[in-house]
């Protein structure tokens, strides 16, 4: 399936001799592609089924745009190719990774199994954590017999107390090789302070088994906290071999098909890396990061600095925050109950989506946490699901046209949706009133989504009213009219590229290296020490970007530090100015920390007497890539009549019941059109709901801006 955007004036040129910029994102169900024709100023979108056995096939399938555009015609003339993959996430979640051996400090090999005593419930929602009996730890990524301990010890200052014995190091590596491991993770205590022993062990592994996939914790995550650092090294070792093999296979196929430019792989930190430099563990969860990246790019283009990016899928609702044009990094990440540390765009999620199951619990209307997922899916899919889902409620209310789901490619069975909602929710709770039951389901799930939006913004010291909402994911546009308004926002933007949002994020990505290092010290820190640290981090970042073809002048550097009061465990990130850092500049950093602290926790919460500490230092180096030239369109008038495709009964309010409501074909709306709610705007892969009183306009980029609180234009 493809979509094409026509017309307009090309603004390209940055792509030189080549003509196309391509972004491809692999999702669970579909592989999405965005192709920007920089000569004609045209943007093509397409989708193809994901091919789990060999994901690269789906990539090629998605490039079959039609109209003479195919992999063969595109690739030789492509100047930028960026790719987001689920290869690593799948390997981790489906437990199809490498056989990993771990080398740890003697006495501490169990830390990856103990999981800080929290691995049993790490990353789980409240209902799961409260139900103790079924909770358990994940099967270990490294079973105990594949963990080797070596006698070596470094202390908190980085001083070597017990030197590594080269003989023992060889023995440990040799034993793991004899066990047939496919990758080795090396994670020693205090290695971020002094990496000598980890490097020595890597040398031994390289000598005894050249080509072995070896990970070193102090390079992947030079931060304090041996459990998370070890988990980072272990996860990278676990997903690394298959990720690297996948990327190499894809590069080979793309080059064979004529690609001349480097393949960029999207990472969870919100930037891309050249394929040959990819760090596997950083590609996990790159999809949500791409969503935020795309949101940032689109919002910037529209002139918005504060954005709440929301993605409603079948099973999860994800929220990312862009404040003053930049996203925040998550302190740590939990995937498959393992907590690890890599720079990652901060995206928070809950188990709520189109597939969330509605059920009655003794007079309570509950939604989730269970989901019908894709199989059997919502009752209306007709695959045997009998429990009503959020999507079923949308069908019952008339929001989703059963004959036009996914552009008509997957007809839904409305009677099954009605039956499920009636039997499981309407009869026990609403006296058989189908519409009230379906509206109730929507209201409860949308309130949960709005609660998460409020939590994510307010908890970080922001006011949701200062933000615009960016909406994507299959079910997002169907629900944002409610959850956006409930969260207090005025405007929601549904991008023209929403169906392929992550692929769009890929094509608009920059090459980015984010480096963080822990160096805990009391404030005021010695300026010389801090300067040296930033110098080292920046040099390393620039070196790495140079290896990816970025000259110094093309690189933008940003510094930040994480601070806290003495003995706290939670830090706040504070920007650190560029240029020469002296005592005064660092004093201002401390003052900014206290300002942010009180903004978040209330006036009077600061407690300078406790002492302030600098913990981590971070450098973000961005090597700008050419951006797809997007064309502003001239307004075509406010009247959307040309896009009107009919009317059908839709229910927005129990008291008023079903009302004849205008249905528009989203593809035919043009810049300047204004659609007044109540209205339904149908796209091939999603449906936009504008509630009574709300109105939507089509902006110069054909994005839909939904005015949630109504008001006059």
């Amino acid at each position: 399936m493809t979509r094409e955007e026509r017309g307009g004036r090309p603004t390209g040129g940055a792509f030189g001799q080549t003509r196309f910029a391509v972004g491809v994102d692999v999702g669970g169900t579909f592989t999405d592609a965005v192709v920007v024709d920089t000569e004609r100023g045209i943007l093509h979108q397409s989708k193809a089924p994901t091919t789990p056995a060999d994901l690269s096939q789906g990539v090629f399938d998605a490039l079959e745009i039609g109209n003479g555009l195919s992999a063969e015609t595109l690739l030789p003339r492509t100047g930028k190719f960026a790719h987001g993959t689920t290869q690593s996430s799948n390997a981790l979640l489906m437990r199809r990774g490498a056989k990993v051996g771990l080398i740890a400090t003697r006495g501490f090999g169990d830390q990856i199994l103990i999981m800080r005593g929290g691995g049993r419930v790490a990353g789980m929602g409240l209902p799961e954590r409260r139900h103790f009996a079924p909770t358990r730890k994940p099967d270990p990524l490294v079973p105990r017999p594949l963990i080797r301990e070596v006698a070596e010890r470094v202390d908190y200052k980085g001083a070597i107390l017990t030197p590594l014995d080269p003989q023992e190091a060889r023995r440990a590596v040799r034993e793991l090789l004899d066990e047939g491991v496919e990758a080795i993770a090396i994670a020693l205590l205090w290695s971020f302070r002094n990496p000598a022993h980890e490097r020595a062990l890597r040398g031994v592994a390289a000598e005894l088994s050249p080509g072995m996939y070896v990970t070193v914790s102090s390079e992947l995550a030079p931060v304090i906290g041996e459990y998370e650092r070890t988990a980072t090294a272990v996860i990278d070792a676990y997903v690394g071999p298959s990720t690297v093999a996948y990327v190499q296979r894809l590069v080979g196929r793309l080059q064979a098909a004529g690609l001349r430019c480097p393949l960029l792989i999207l990472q969870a930190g919100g930037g891309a890396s050249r394929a040959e430099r990819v760090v596997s563990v950083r590609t996990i969860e790159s999809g949500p990061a791409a969503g935020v990246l795309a949101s940032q790019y689109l919002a910037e283009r529209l002139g918005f600095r504060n954005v709440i990016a929301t993605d409603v899928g079948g099973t999860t609702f994800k929220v990312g925050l862009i404040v003053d044009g930049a996203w925040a990094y998550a302190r740590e990440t939990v995937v498959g109950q393992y907590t690890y540390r890599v720079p990652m765009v901060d995206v928070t999620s809950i188990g709520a989506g189109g597939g969330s199951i509605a059920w009655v619990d003794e007079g309570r209307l509950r939604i989730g946490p269970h989901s019908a997922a894709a199989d059997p899916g919502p009752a209306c899919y007709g695959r045997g699901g009998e429990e009503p889902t959020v999507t079923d409620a949308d069908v019952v209310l008339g929001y989703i046209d059963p004959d036009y789901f996914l552009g008509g490619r997957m007809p839904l069975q409305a009677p099954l949706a009605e039956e499920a909602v009636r039997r499981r929710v309407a009869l026990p709770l609403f006296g058989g009133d189908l519409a009230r039951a379906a509206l109730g389901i929507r209201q409860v799930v949308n309130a949960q989504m709005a609660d998460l939006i409020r939590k994510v913004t307010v908890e970080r010291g922001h006011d949701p009213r200062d933000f615009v909402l960016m909406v994507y994911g299959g079910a997002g546009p169907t629900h944002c009219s409610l959850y956006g308004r409930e969260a207090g926002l005025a405007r929601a933007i549904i991008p023209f590229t929403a169906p392929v949002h992550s692929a769009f994020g890929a094509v608009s990505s920059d090459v980015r290296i984010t480096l963080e290092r822990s160096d805990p010290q009391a404030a005021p820190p010695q300026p010389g020490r801090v300067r040296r640290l930033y110098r080292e981090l920046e040099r390393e970042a620039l070196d790495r970007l140079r290896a990816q073809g970025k000259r110094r002048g093309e690189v933008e550097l940003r510094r930040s530090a994480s601070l806290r009061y003495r003995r706290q465990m939670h830090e706040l990130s504070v920007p650190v100015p560029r240029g020469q850092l002296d005592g005064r500049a660092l004093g201002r950093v401390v003052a900014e920390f206290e300002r942010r602290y009180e903004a978040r926790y209330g006036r009077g919460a600061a407690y300078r007497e406790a002492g302030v500490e600098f913990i981590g230092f971070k450098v973000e180096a961005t090597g700008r890539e050419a951006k797809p030239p997007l064309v502003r369109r001239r307004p075509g008038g406010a009247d959307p009549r040309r896009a009107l495709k009919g009317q059908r009964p839709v229910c927005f309010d129990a008291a008023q019941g079903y009302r004849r409501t205008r249905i528009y074909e989203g593809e035919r709306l043009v810049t300047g059109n204004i659609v007044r709610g109540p209205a339904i705007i149908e796209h091939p892969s999603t449906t936009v709901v504008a509630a009574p009183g709300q109105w939507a306009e089509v902006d110069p980029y054909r994005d839909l801006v939904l005015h949630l609180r109504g008001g006059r234009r």
Partner: protein
Amino acid sequence: MSGRRLDPVTFEVILHKLNQIAEEMCISYINCSGSEPLVQANDGNAGITLADGSMVVVGPYVIIQANVLPLTIAKVLERCRENPGIGEGDMFICNDPWVGPIHQPDITTVAPLFHGGEIFCWTGASGHQSDVGGKDPGGFSIGVVDVHQEGLRMPPAKLVEGGELRRDLFDWVLNAVRDPLVGLDVKAQIAANHVGQARLRELIERFGAETVKACMEESIRYSESRFRKRLTSLPDGTWRTRQYIDHDGHAPNLYKLECTMTKRGDRLAFDYEGTDPQVRSQINCTYTGLIAGTLTPVYIMLCHDIPWNRGILNRVDIRAPEGVINNCLYPTPCSMATVSACYLTLDLAAAAIAQMCAASPDYHQEAMAIWTAASVAPMVSGTNQHGHPFSLVEMSHFAAGGGALTHRDGVDSAGMYFTTTPLISNIETTEQFYPVLYLFRRQLPDSGGPGMYRGGCAGEIAFIPHGHGGEFLETVLIGTGHEMPNSVGLWGGFPGGCGRHIRIRGSEIAERLGRGDPLPASLEGMGGEWEVFPPKAPRTPFFPGQVWYSSWQGAGGYGDPLDRDPEKVLADVAGGLVSPSCAREIYGVVPSPEGGVDHPATEALRERHRAERRSRAGGGPAGGGPVECGEPPRLVGRGLRCKEYVVWDEARGELFCRKCGFSFGPLDADPKGRALWEDAPLSRAGPVMGQLYDRGRFVLRLYYCPGCLALLECEVLRRGDPPVGSQLARARAGMPRRAKKKG
């Protein structure tokens, strides 16, 4: 009853928001706190109550810390209304164990939320501080005889007045404690209340006060109704459980706590009659610990899908005679309540509830043997390497073992039972702040209670002083269950391992460090001279060259270890969780030389173990001799049972062994009455059963089926104490009391 019924949608929407507000309060609290137990082990919580203090929402952290909020608020209302008055923007701080918090190191701050000039509801936060003054640093004073030796004990006092922090009160708290960072925690509690109140005000603005209030009240009514139904569907019966405390801080005196749990219809009653009188030492708890401890397993095992609030307490009766160890009176000390009386109260209730759940075909899957049953922690204090005074409560034991279930193993280093969100510190974080260097932290082999399903393993740690520039350091020890295990098994499962505190001298640590030699990485590899300390010990100097070692209790197992899948036993051996000798002696598993299980040899060895049981055991109808067995009952899967193997045959009206058909009598008989039994040394359950601290005062009483010698029950018993028994009364409401009618 509130005036009008809420529509289900509004109810659900507001309930979700209330839970989220409580969690957000907790996160703010933990993020802002500077207390080691809190920031490293999440030992705190927050909650929301009605205007009268009735619990509405328990936050997702340490359950006990939230359970004390209603008690505190009730006392604030009682004592402070007239003077100093309760006004808008006020907050009250308190750490008096006769008011709310279980012990003095837990400080609680509660705040009324006013609407329309009246108290609308309360928010509160409670958490464990790193010091509270008193005789010993770290909040637990050892060897005291009255509560005044235990440090600061604040009645409810107005900490914030009309939104302004009262500096005099704040300074007074700081004056009373050794660690100035307690101030950071007090501020964190204030921040948590600020966050909660701001969100609640938004909620009231959005939905209206009346609706929010109606929702709060409805949630309590809803929980009560759900809980009543749950109780009704569980079997009636009486379950008795017992626990011991093995040291009172003065001397190795023994104390017992007993619980009788009776379930009839839709009520659940806990009676602690039989518990020893209060002691002039810090091991007691007040009624606040009694209530908070009892409610914790009620929430966890019976109410995972019911909102935790006042509605549950409405169906539970909790009673203990005044002046006993878990209902002590002023001025009895109680700073170690959470390590002793309160914790064991939780264990007593949990063991009784587990048996009731296991008996039921519907809740069998929910039953869990006792998790790591008490805290074991070394605490170090002095001046750290950065020149700050400190007291470190070493919280590694929060990586507690998880109790075995009726269908699978407990989780190793699963996290403490009483918290929804467990956590322990990274080694590096501790070494960064405190002048210690760890030699190891690992899972402890054979600490998980053996059973058909094994209890989760505990762990062990050892550390030395390091980098503190010769400052004087001291260690205080807390713990329970070093002489005998508290983590009892369920229905034939053995208990989890005991705790240990050991100081090692003369192991040449300093010399090894000086030479850059490898440091010892196990207790056995330490050499030197071991000094086994009691579970509780007052300040002891901690000099360079010495090593402190501690290990904590494992979790109880489930079912007869001889029935454990031999493959799992060998997997545990390979994983370092079970020693080869226990595999043979306890589980009767023989590995084949090529690897894998030698099945014929295993079967033979297991038969030999059963024969040994027969030869050692007495009691029963024939004293170990042959007995008559009938047909094993056919109904098993969905039936009622009172041991793993003893099931109720409704048709024949008797309890039978489902393996061999031996009859244990009518439904309300205690199967122990007809079982064979023997008293075995604790070491029968493994090598970490208090061997290093043995005083010869405890036995394991093992009960076997006279027909097939299956292990039915394993009881930890002080020599001379009578066993405790349990009886089913009837399967469920409405079921005829067959046995009684016959008589």
